[in-house]
């Protein structure tokens, strides 16, 4: 997902007998769906895991602007351009809400950004794929934002108050993102044969990476089991992926596009679609830094950060100078 394979730092799920009374009380409150707030006591592993998860999520929102930004100047109409800019601006906001939520856990914004630039913390694998043409902007909104919504809606109920509240805001804004993407796909599928072929090509390239966004099956994962006990993960990766497939395949059919999976079939008994195997070797390679755009994404992020350094410093110096002048005038 936007936060993939989040490590809890634990090698087994903590059971009640190993917990201190304080930890037991904490778990009892989570079980009772009481939200954890920044100043409440929390186990160190809970805090650390949340920082990692929220931080990955925030970085994904920010880095996710890059593939889309690639097409702002080449949007086919002024209207599409304005819409795309509004969408990208929302993603900047999502990053900010999430960084703020992470900061309530006692980490600084600059440290979070340094971690991204140093490659210590990842962002979603999906943003390491290139946007080759305008149809990719449609496919991203439809599939990538669609997958993100799938993951983010349950997180509105997560146990950490600031994270849950950020998710509520984000979910309100996301459905516009998915719809504008589908709207682009509809326009292309109703257009010329060439345009429809572009839409098909975009689906061919984005389908599998979108399914990979949910991460490998975590049925056996200690980290996922622990995160679920803490209610910072609500549904398993496979469950979310299945929901996404079930929702998206009929949408592709509506567009008259073919999902690039020869094994895809409807199972009337289970009421779900069955899919072919996912190439997890590709996913692992992308995570290790060998996706088509990994290096480029971080280079562009760092450049933007470094180029903005003097602005951040000048604004602070200006604020200090003005405050001094005001206090002198008051004295």
């Amino acid at each position: 997902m936007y936060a993939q394979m989040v490590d809890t730092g634990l090698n087994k799920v903590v059971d009640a007998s190993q917990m201190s009374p304080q930890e037991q009380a904490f778990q009892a409150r989570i079980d009772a769906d009481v939200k954890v707030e920044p100043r409440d006591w929390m186990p160190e592993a809970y805090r650390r895991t949340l920082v990692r998860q929220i931080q990955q999520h925030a970085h994904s929102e920010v880095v996710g602007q890059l593939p889309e930004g690639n097409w702002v100047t080449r949007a086919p109409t002024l209207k599409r351009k304005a819409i795309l800019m509004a969408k990208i601006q929302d993603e900047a906001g999502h990053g900010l809400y999430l960084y703020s939520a992470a900061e309530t856990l006692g980490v600084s914004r600059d440290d979070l950004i340094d971690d991204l630039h140093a490659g210590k913390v990842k962002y979603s694998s999906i943003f390491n794929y290139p946007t080759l043409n305008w149809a990719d902007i449609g496919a991203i909104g439809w599939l990538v934002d669609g997958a993100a919504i799938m993951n983010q809606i349950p997180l509105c109920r997560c146990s950490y108050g600031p994270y849950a509240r950020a998710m509520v805001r984000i979910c309100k804004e996301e459905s516009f993102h998915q719809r504008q993407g589908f709207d682009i796909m509809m326009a292309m599928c109703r257009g010329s044969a060439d345009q429809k072929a572009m839409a098909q090509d975009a689906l061919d390239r984005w389908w599998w990476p979108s399914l990979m966004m949910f991460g490998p099956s975590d049925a056996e994962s200690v980290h996922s089991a622990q995160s679920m006990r803490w209610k910072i993960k609500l549904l398993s990766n496979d469950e979310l992926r299945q929901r996404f497939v079930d929702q998206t395949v009929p949408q592709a059919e509506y567009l008259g596009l073919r999902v690039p999976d020869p094994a895809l079939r409807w199972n009337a008994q289970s009421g779900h679609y069955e899919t072919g195997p996912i190439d997890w070797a590709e996913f692992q390679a992308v995570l290790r830094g060998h996706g088509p755009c990994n290096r480029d994404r971080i280079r562009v992020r760092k450049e933007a950060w470094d180029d903005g350094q003097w602005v951040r410093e000048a604004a602070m110096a200006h604020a200090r100078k003005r405050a001094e002048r005001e206090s002198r005038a008051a004295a």
Partner: protein
Amino acid sequence: MTSEWPLWEVFIRSQHGLAHKHAGSLHASDAEMAMKNARDVYTRRNEGVSIWVVKSADVVASAPGDREALFDPANDKVYRHPTFFPMPDEVKHI
């Protein structure tokens, strides 16, 4: 040198809202920038008609440990609620 801007808390009053409500936080070098950023980040869809920004460092918050001391005393003062006083059916408008 670290140049991290101070953190601000943002409160928004919506069109039909009776009070300002906490919307989130942001970094800004001064109050003017905090106001501009709050507008950009928290009112892109007509969420508000009024914004307050307050330096996070200036917020004084109650401690979770003081919950009982602060809030429990209200529990045994049910007479503060109008429902504590049953009124005869014949008496109207009260």
